[in-house]
């Protein structure tokens, strides 16, 4: 592909602005590869319906819809179910299962309701209590984000990590909450940052 052809492709991308402003024109081969490789395409089937409702409500409490989309809009609950099913190891999955069961039981005990039926302030109280109890976990250590996973992290930390990761790497999170630019075509190292501007999605290099 020479530069002219590339520019034409880039122009095509941009001219599709109205319909799919941020979607990428992937080649057939890329699509084929990604369809094969994208483990997230297979819907997970790990939670029962009650667990699914609670996990979605917890994720939404962590990253709620505001004037921009929230965790549920971004498909985070499905991401979490998939990660718990396929990505966590057995011990981590055990921590998750137990933490979720305890949360579901404790809201019934305290409020006589399941988590997703609570008022937002009550939901927040529940999670803050969990965070407070987990506060000595290494998960909270300063700078402890450049690693793959903290294997003994408590349930609340697992939920936060999976929710936040799933949210900002989703198409919705990356394009509607952060900013995403697939084809910058230039580098400007001195771009003004407005007080309300979001970070760029993805990795700078």
């Amino acid at each position, binding site marked *: 592909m020479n530069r002219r052809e590339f520019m034409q492709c880039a122009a095509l991308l941009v001219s599709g602005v109205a319909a799919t402003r941020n979607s990428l024109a992937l080649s057939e081969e890329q699509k084929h590869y990604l369809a094969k490789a994208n483990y*997230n395409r297979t819907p997970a089937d790990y939670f029962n319906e009650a667990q699914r409702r609670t996990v979605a409500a917890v994720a939404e409490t962590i990253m709620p819809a505001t004037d921009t989309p929230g965790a549920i809009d971004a498909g985070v609950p499905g991401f979490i179910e998939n990660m718990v099913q396929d990505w966590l190891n057995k011990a981590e999955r055990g921590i998750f299962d137990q933490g979720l069961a305890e949360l579901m039981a404790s809201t019934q005990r305290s409020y006589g309701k399941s988590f997703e039926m609570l008022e937002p302030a009550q939901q927040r109280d529940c999670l803050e209590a969990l965070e407070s109890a987990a506060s000595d976990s290494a998960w909270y250590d300063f700078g402890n984000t450049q690693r793959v996973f903290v294997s003994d992290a408590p349930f609340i930390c697992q939920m936060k990590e999976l929710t936040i990761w799933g949210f900002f790497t989703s198409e919705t999170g990356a394009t509607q909450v952060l900013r995403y630019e697939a084809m910058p075509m*230039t580098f400007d190292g001195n771009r003004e940052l407005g007080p309300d501007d979001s*970070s760029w999605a993805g990795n700078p290099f």
Partner: protein
Amino acid sequence: MIQSENYDFDAIVVGSGISGGWAAKELTEKGLKVLVLERGRDITPGLDYYGEHAPDWKLPYQGKKPRELYENEYPIQSHGYALNEGNRQFWNNDKDNPYVFDAEKPFYWMRADVVGGRSLIWGRQTYRWCEQDFTANATDGHGIPWPIGYCDLAPWYSHVEQFAGISGEALGLDELPDSEFLKPMEMHALEKTIQGRLRKKAPHVHMTIGRVAILSEDHNGRAACHYCGPCDRGCSTGSYFSSHSATLPAARATGNLTLKANAVVERLEYDAQGGRVSAVHVIDSQTGERSAFRARLYFLCASTVGSTQILMNSRSEAFPDGLGNRSGALGHYMMDHVYGVGITGIFYDDMDRYWFGNRPNGTYIPRFRNLGDQDDDAGFLRGYGYQGAAMRMDWKTGFNKRGFGADLKESLRKPGPWVFHLAGFGEVLPQYANRMYLDAKKVDRFGIPQVGFSCQWGDNERMIRDDMLEQGEALMKAAGAVFTVKQGEMGEPGLGIHEMGTARMGDDPTQSVVNAHNQVHGAPNVFVTDGACMTSSSCVNPSLTYMALTARACDYAVKQLAQGRL
């Protein structure tokens, strides 16, 4: 040029990475019929760059690394910084192609397994060696003297730079000679701020934009960078130098190139009567079929470890310890760079400045210690440079904070303070004890003896590490950091992915494996032009030097051939 029916090709090049691609280009352009043998599978440039431009949400687990797969099949490659799901297809599968790993003295052999080799996934930083790099061994007595100097290589640096396209800023420094540059990439706002402060408060250092084999402007029919970011996934516009974007297309254009993928070289066959290598023995990795090819010239460009493995496995009566190994130096004097040591500073400057576009490059502070003579306060020999880059913290560096809800979302959405990182790259001394070997008891799936390593860093490397941290801390202060974090643990040998040595260059055949023209002592039609030939390591990224050495050796070999000396 082929005149005798005994030859299948004029030249055979083993390997298609940075060095092999250059050998293919230079030799075919000089009219030779060339066969390139590559053990990895073939790929189609562009079409097969599956991860290119794939956003996070298209990647497996949205970019969370698949731990189980990496532990089972990529335990070595995943230990380094560079493997990810956007580029995994280029890397060696450690289960399929293992080596003898000694957990007590670990050496991480980072390998590609495709046509183009590591030129697809390299870091692209390109720096010329300086005169002091070539005289260091003779001066301080570690290793043997280089038989060549900067003046021998300078025209060849120019030759390869003009073709490859190197962007950077000319500084006129003896310690970091300028390349033939395309326009430099721009600095981040904070990098310019730091550069200004260092000029005043640390005038002994020079901070410049990284010199990089990425096109900042259209060049030789290749398009300028479009700043998408992760070069290592492949580039369909050919904007960074790789065998696929640059050298192999040029070689193909001559009509003189034959490239065989899935071709594992087992050994070279030495003809004692003729005093020459007469054939290369190859195993097809897919069918197991064995074949042999004959040529006038053989270029080993299979990577430091790969080329030496072939020499070691090419035993004969004349060379019982491996081809060209009358010195006993083969496999020894393995080097890499002091790597993994760095300082990160947090800055509250330029908070209203950000960037547009993903610059696949950083900044560089060239060596400033022991220039010319030893510094009075330096207890170590040689020196180091710093690669660096600024970026703003974001959700990925802050997702473990406390809190929930709209406030958390808002704080993670916006850029945090700037961070600037200095990553030291230090020169490693050549040591006899640091070596690779063949393990006769362990063979790979082709029946070829596996390689093993015994390498450890010594006192000089540790002293360089200490000085990197001390000087780096001072530079961060001068730069205005409000807070710094040191990373002082050195990466194990191999993790710098600058492994070099093991078939070192020297005039004396009793001490070295190749001569000043990369020609194997005792086997004059064999040339080793990749990292294996290195006699010392400098502290700058080595690939540009392999390119220049390869082009120079090709020129020499073809002239010798024309004069009937080969």
